[in-house]
């Protein structure tokens, strides 16, 4: 027989003004199994809590119902009080008499009746409560950061500076990401590499960071605090320990005309190469797809010239297994590439380029050493046109969202052009100028007012070549859609920022969700922007949506704090509100029939298949098993289960049916 204590709170006058608290307590005292009931002015106060504690000790209560405010407010308070008096905290339930009753109804008998009902529901529920213990899982205090762009760099440094180990993996031969390609950054126009490269060096030298470039995530298993990641270290064809980065091989390599990825195809590189002079690590890799030795079986010039004998033609990819407790995904974004804009002639006309290509032209380390020269003939363009929203905000192109960074970088590009080409004319076709951000609007105004960039509100229908000029044909919507034609020397498309190729596969490897555009999805759009719906995996930077440098850095630091918070504990404790599959005595073992409908319902991949074996090791039955580390306790599987074999602690079938029955059965 249960001994339940009912504690009705007046909340000053918040409850007692409309609810007859004494009557509620008195009525509750008459229910079966209620050993003690009382009303008091402030249950959450120290004397109030002492009433509960003393009653638990003196009456030997097996369950407690506190009828006061919302459990979202004081459930932890009262559960703690119960625990202090020696009662399992999960034997305490709260009836919400304030938010759901006294504050929303008039003072009359019906309100008191409702209060009595609310108490009765929980008195009956608590009879079926079970003592639960918090779940403890150990934590491996090493973080894996995927992606070595500015977000990954920032997250790695922040985590490493809290004293925890970080493994940073990067797909390309060097860290730095898109930021290393940029010329100058808005709205301050400071040089991108000047602010980035010191951070890159810091990453390489940090004692807590292990950096693997030219490496990708192969597979991921496990759960928060206990992930097992397999990392594929692609063969660089060199022995990194022996290589000194002297650069002999890259200067002597005979294959010299490979379009450089770093320069967005505007420059050339060799087959054995370092992507850019400030690369970290500053050691070359052999691009096997273009190397003569791998294609024709002879050459080996690099091996001959290498003073330390570091070239390894027979090196193979290595698969490395690491154990990590948390993961920060910072894989970034890419921009829409050729063929996507046939109307703008991208790929057809050499002088129609992307914004990222313009960055390389404007960069002092770029193929033109910072001079704005058009790719076709190297002339300095006298008229240049920038097209905003090339692909973005265009549902017909499948990209209805705003790429967010383009308005700002176009203003920057136009400004840089005006600074570098005196007397040149620049035009910007835009839909709207979206310059939300600190000093962003001022920056755009500066481009228009101080540097004389011509902003034309309207879209461009097509670009075609005539007498060696690119004719940009569009409309000015501020002049009643008047047709505009500009004879330009060069056109820059602010192409839409899109998710990386392979983002979908990566998300599926990690069991994190992604949106229709393949950007990774955050756990909550407002309150959990860096978490994913898989506990222990966090997001940073533009892999979640297009974003600029300050936002990426802020997000990375946010993710790092989440990781540091996780690592500050030796064991994770979680509320035991999780699903469990029942187990019964042989020969049934479990009422689960192994249909695994629950597996398809679970948003967290928390349900596994378990083999029940006999003494000879033969499988008798295949049943579902919930991984307590992954289960978040939504209970979707419970409603799905055909045999009612799965149940969620704290909201069991018994409890919920009892609540419904208690509510409607008159006492």
């Amino acid at each position: 027989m249960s001994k339940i204590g009912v504690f009705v709170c007046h909340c000053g006058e918040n409850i007692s003004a409309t609810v007859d608290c004494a009557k509620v307590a008195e009525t509750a005292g008459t229910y079966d199994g209620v050993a003690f009931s009382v009303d008091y002015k402030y249950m959450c106060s120290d004397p109030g809590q002492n009433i509960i504690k003393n009653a638990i000790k003196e009456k030997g209560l097996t369950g407690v119902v506190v009828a006061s405010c919302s459990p979202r407010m004081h459930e932890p308070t009262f559960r703690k009080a119960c625990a202090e008096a020696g009662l399992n905290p999960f034997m305490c339930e709260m009836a919400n008499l304030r938010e759901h009753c006294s504050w929303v109804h008039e003072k009359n008998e019906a309100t008191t009746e409702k209060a009595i009902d609310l108490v009765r529901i929980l008195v009956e529920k608590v009879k079926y409560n079970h003592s639960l213990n918090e779940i403890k899982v150990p934590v491996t205090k090493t973080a894996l950061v995927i992606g070595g762009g500015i977000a990954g760099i920032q997250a790695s440094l922040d985590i490493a500076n809290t004293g925890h180990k970080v493994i940073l993996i990067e797909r390309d031969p060097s860290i730095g990401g898109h930021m290393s390609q940029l010329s100058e950054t808005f709205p301050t126009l400071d040089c991108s590499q000047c602010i980035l490269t010191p951070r890159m060096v810091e990453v390489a030298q940090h004692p807590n960071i292990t950096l693997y470039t030219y490496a990708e995530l192969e597979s991921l298993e496990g759960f928060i605090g206990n992930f097992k990641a397999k990392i594929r270290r692609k063969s660089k064809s060199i022995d990194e320990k022996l290589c000194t980065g002297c650069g002999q091989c890259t200067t002597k390599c005979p294959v010299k005309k490979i379009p450089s990825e770093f320069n967005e195809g505007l420059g050339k590189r060799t087959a054995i190469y370092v992507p850019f002079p400030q690369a970290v690590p500053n050691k070359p890799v052999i691009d096997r797809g273009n190397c003569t030795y791998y294609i024709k079986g002879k050459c080996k010039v690099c091996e001959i010239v290498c003073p330390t004998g570091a070239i390894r033609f027979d090196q193979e990819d290595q698969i490395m297994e690491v154990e990590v407790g948390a993961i920060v995904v910072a894989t970034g974004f890419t921009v829409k590439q050729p063929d996507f804009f046939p109307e703008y002639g991208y790929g057809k006309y050499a002088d129609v380029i992307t914004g990222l290509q313009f960055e390389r032209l404007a960069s002092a380390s770029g193929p033109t050493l910072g001079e704005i020269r058009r790719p076709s003939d190297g002339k300095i363009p006298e008229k240049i046109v920038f097209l905003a929203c090339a692909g973005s905000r265009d549902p017909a192109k499948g990209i209805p969202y705003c790429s967010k960074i383009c308005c700002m970088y176009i203003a920057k590009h136009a400004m840089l052009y005006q600074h570098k080409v005196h007397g040149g004319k620049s035009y910007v076709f835009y839909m709207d100028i979206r310059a939300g951000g600190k000093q962003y609007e001022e920056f755009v105004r500066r481009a228009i007012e101080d540097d004389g960039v011509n902003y034309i509100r309207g879209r461009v229908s097509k670009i075609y070549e005539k007498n060696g000029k690119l004719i940009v044909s569009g409309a000015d919507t501020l002049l009643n859609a008047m047709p505009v034609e500009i004879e330009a020397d060069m056109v820059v498309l602010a192409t839409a920022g899109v998710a990386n190729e392979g983002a979908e596969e990566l998300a599926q490897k990690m069991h994190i969700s992604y949106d229709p555009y393949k950007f990774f999805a955050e756990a909550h759009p407002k309150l959990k922007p860096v978490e994913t719906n898989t506990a222990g995996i966090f997001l940073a930077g533009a892999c979640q949506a297009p974003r600029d440098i300050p936002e990426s850095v802020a997000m990375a630091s946010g993710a790092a704090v989440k990781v540091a918070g996780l690592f500050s504990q030796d064991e994770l404790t979680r509320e035991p509100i999780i699903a469990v599959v029942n187990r019964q005595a042989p020969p049934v073992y479990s009422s689960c029939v192994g249909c695994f409908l629950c597996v398809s319902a679970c948003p967290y991949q928390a349900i596994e298949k378990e083999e029940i074996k006999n003494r000879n090791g033969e499988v008798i039955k295949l049943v579902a098993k919930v991984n307590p580390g992954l289960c978040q306790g939504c209970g979707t599987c419970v409603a799905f289960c055909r045999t009612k074999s799965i149940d969620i602690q704290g909201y069991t079938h018994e409890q919920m049916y009892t609540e419904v029955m208690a509510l409607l059965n008159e006492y």
Partner: protein
Amino acid sequence: MAEFEPKIVAFVCNWCTYAGADLTGTSRIKYASNVRIIRFPCTGRIDYMLLLKAFDEGADGIIVSGCHPNDCHYTSGNFHARRRWIMFRSLCDFTGIDTERIKFSWVSAAEGAKWAEIVNTTVASIRELGPYTDYKKVAKYPEKEVIHG
């Protein structure tokens, strides 16, 4: 004769509608006192057999409410709830259970006023429909269950 006061049970999720109803309280918006809230972790947890149980026990109307689509605390519980509701509704229609008496809605944690409005409109419409005495006819329960020993 006093006006008929319907008994209404609300099955709500912990994260959106329960919090939304809390906000109704903190905003001191008044609504009809006929509703009793039962808290679930997620609308995805709501086993629709519970709705039948509630009718069986004498409820006149039911509200099911959770997070808006895409806002689910558990990512997709509300989608599962919605999908099962569509199936369940067809089943109700087929068996003759009055689906007018079940109100399915989304109320976020920021929509205190919407919660009050939903309760009030549901109470008004159920009051018009009258007590749900037909359920027993539909369910055709034997008056007394005979248990053989």
